[in-house]
């Protein structure tokens, strides 16, 4: 009996010792902290190697995309001097007493088109990181936007005709850009204002029968109007994240417009784009000039990010422009690579579009040409071979100079989850998979430990 008691006692003591040993581990875990902190400390203590490995992978997953896949850094362009002299020229020679831009020194009037272009150029320059008088720009942009907004862009008070549809959409694009310049100091451009102008534009020019932009009471529709609508609607969707407005669902509207381009303006057999379609005789007319293709390229590149479909990619069209309209010296011609029509406007828009499509190698070549051949007398000439400097040509010069830095900012703003080089790179996928496996391993280990409790 006494031996039995002794055995029982020894068993009790042994159990107590085991319990104490186990409890010491448990208490150490408890003392190492609560919740996530406790688990992390526990992990660090009992899985040091695993934690070090995880930390290295975590750091690599951040560092590799940042170091190797980062977008071009925004640096202040050496074009600062060009920008300064051109702005000075516009402010001294091409601005009226009220501060509005004027067409030229002899024709001292303004126009909606010029006002839209000026506010666009100022907005791009203001965002591109050049040193300038920010307040001056903001005042001018506000003044112009106020005047235009009163007419909702559709008609300007001194006009006999409505604003061309191209400028109507360019005006909308300008509004979107100006908002980023003015939002810090003023609420002059509200989201509601942009939505109102967008709605009014769609109501005025979008055909009820088809997804087609067509001037009122016209038998013809134009490629440039369709592509401007596609560009603006895609940009609006990408920048704001809103794809719906008062009954208009933008992604289906954009796809409808692309279908219209395909049906009326594009011959897939001959690979030819036309700039006009006459609906009364069902005929496509006039080969598209470079301006049409430039805006079609940028429109398509933005629409592609919204997963719409067209028979050709934006890069195909961009390449088509280089093949057919750009000569060996990187001059962009209006109708074909051998004509004499080399305008600053087309250079500027092609630079802007190339940078927006991350085709900086093309953009920089054309930009070099513009500073070499169009920059004259502290401004920019309108056309190669002539010496006319107008407010408009200077503004195009500014657009060209701003494009490189501004396009980086513009592309970074887009809200939609667009597959980027960083997100789909093999390195990122590789790191993600390894991290997932390690997390599963740690999680399973933790469960086993908990069961031991």
């Amino acid at each position, binding site marked *: 009996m006494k031996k039995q008691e002794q055995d029982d*006692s020894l068993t*009790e*003591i042994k*159990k*107590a*010792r*085991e*319990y*104490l*040993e*186990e*409890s*010491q581990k*448990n*208490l150490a875990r*408890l*003392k190492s902290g609560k919740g996530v902190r406790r688990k992390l400390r526990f992990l660090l203590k009992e899985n040091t190697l695993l934690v070090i490995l995880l930390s290295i992978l975590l750091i690599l997953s951040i560092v590799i995309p940042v170091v190797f896949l980062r977008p071009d850094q925004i640096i202040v362009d050496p074009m600062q001097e060009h920008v300064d002299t051109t702005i000075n020229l516009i402010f001294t020679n091409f601005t009226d007493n009220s501060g509005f831009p004027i067409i030229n020194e002899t024709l001292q009037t303004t126009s909606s088109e010029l006002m839209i272009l000026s506010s666009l150029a100022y907005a791009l320059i203001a965002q591109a990181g050049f040193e300038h008088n920010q307040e001056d720009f903001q005042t001018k942009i506000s003044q112009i936007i106020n005047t235009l907004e009163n007419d909702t862009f559709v008609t300007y008070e001194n006009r006999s005709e409505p604003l061309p549809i191209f400028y109507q959409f360019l005006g909308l694009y300008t509004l979107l850009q100006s908002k980023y310049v003015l939002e810090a100091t003023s609420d002059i451009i509200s989201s509601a204002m942009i939505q109102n102008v967008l709605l009014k534009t769609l109501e005025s020019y979008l055909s009820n029968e088809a997804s087609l932009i067509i001037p009122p009471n016209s038998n013809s529709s134009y490629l440039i109007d369709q592509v401007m609508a596609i560009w603006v609607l895609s940009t609006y969707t990408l920048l704001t994240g809103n794809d719906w407005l008062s009954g208009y669902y933008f992604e289906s509207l954009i796809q409808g417009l692309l279908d219209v381009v395909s049906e009326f303006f594009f011959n897939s057999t001959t690979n030819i784009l036309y700039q006009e379609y006459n609906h009364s005789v069902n005929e496509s007319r006039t080969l598209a000039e470079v301006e049409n293709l430039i805006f079609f390229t940028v429109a398509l590149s933005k629409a592609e990010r919204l997963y719409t479909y067209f028979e050709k990619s934006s890069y195909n069209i961009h390449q088509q422009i280089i093949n057919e309209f750009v000569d060996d010296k990187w001059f962009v011609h209006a109708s074909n690579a051998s004509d004499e029509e080399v305008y600053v406007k087309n250079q500027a828009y092609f630079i802007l579009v190339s940078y927006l499509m991350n085709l900086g190698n093309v953009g920089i070549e054309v930009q070099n040409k513009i500073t070499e051949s169009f920059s004259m007398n502290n401004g920019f000439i309108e056309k190669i071979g002539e010496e006319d400097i107008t407010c408009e040509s200077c503004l195009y010069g500014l657009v060209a100079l701003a494009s490189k830095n501004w396009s980086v900012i513009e592309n970074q703003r887009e809200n939609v989850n667009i597959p980027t080089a960083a997100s789909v790179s093999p390195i990122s996928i590789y790191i993600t998979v390894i991290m997932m496996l390690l997390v599963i391993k740690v999680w399973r280990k933790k469960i086993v430990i*908990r*069961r031991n*409790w």
Partner: protein
Amino acid sequence: MKTVCVHSYKGGTGKTTFLLNIAGILAKQEKKILAIDYDLRAPSFQSYFKTTKQSFLSHYLLEEKDVNDIIFPCKIDERANLDLIFSSMEFLKQHSKQRDKLSRDDAKYLAKMYNLQKNVEKKYDFMLIDTIPGFFYRSIDSMMISDIIFLISTPSTSNVLGIDELCNNIYTMLQKETKMILIINKIEEEGVEADKEIFEENLAKLRKIGKDKFSAVVEVPYFNILSERIHAFEEQPQEEFLKSLQDIIKLIE
């Protein structure tokens, strides 16, 4: 906050009397005290403080009640307050035997006591825990979370042997930071133990164990007859007893 646990090898050593009197003296010094009856085998706070409350430590351990719902303030006099947690036999009914294998519940109870300690540590100066005598898991829990352990022993033969076992198997495994104090309660027992020689022999053994294996050894006069009373608040307190307790308090402050 300091956590003090009072343990013994066997019952009847005056563990609860010792704890509550220490609590009483500290409370009279305006220290904030929480005393916990964790002697689940023989809960006895009710003998000192009449209560009709039906919220016990077991409710907290079994996650039926929050810690704040089981703490009861007890006003001893104008200035002194003592907060108490009572126990009932409920818990023991459900966990009457130590299992052969450790269960997750065992870790849970340790965690619950640790969390209780963390919850109250800013509110009190001392948390005093009365434990189950012997090698019980819940006693080990109390000792694990304590800064100071009082082991109370009488000079009986079984206690002397048991203390030795406790020292060799449990106390030596506890963290070095834990302060161990042996309290020798000089009870003269009846029968064989009443033999003066045996008493002196056991007392000598206890003193040796205390000297070899504890941070301090304190002998207190026989205070079994003083049980169920908190002498610091008595009109005619046992001065000798109180003085020995005050000496002990100096060791823990």
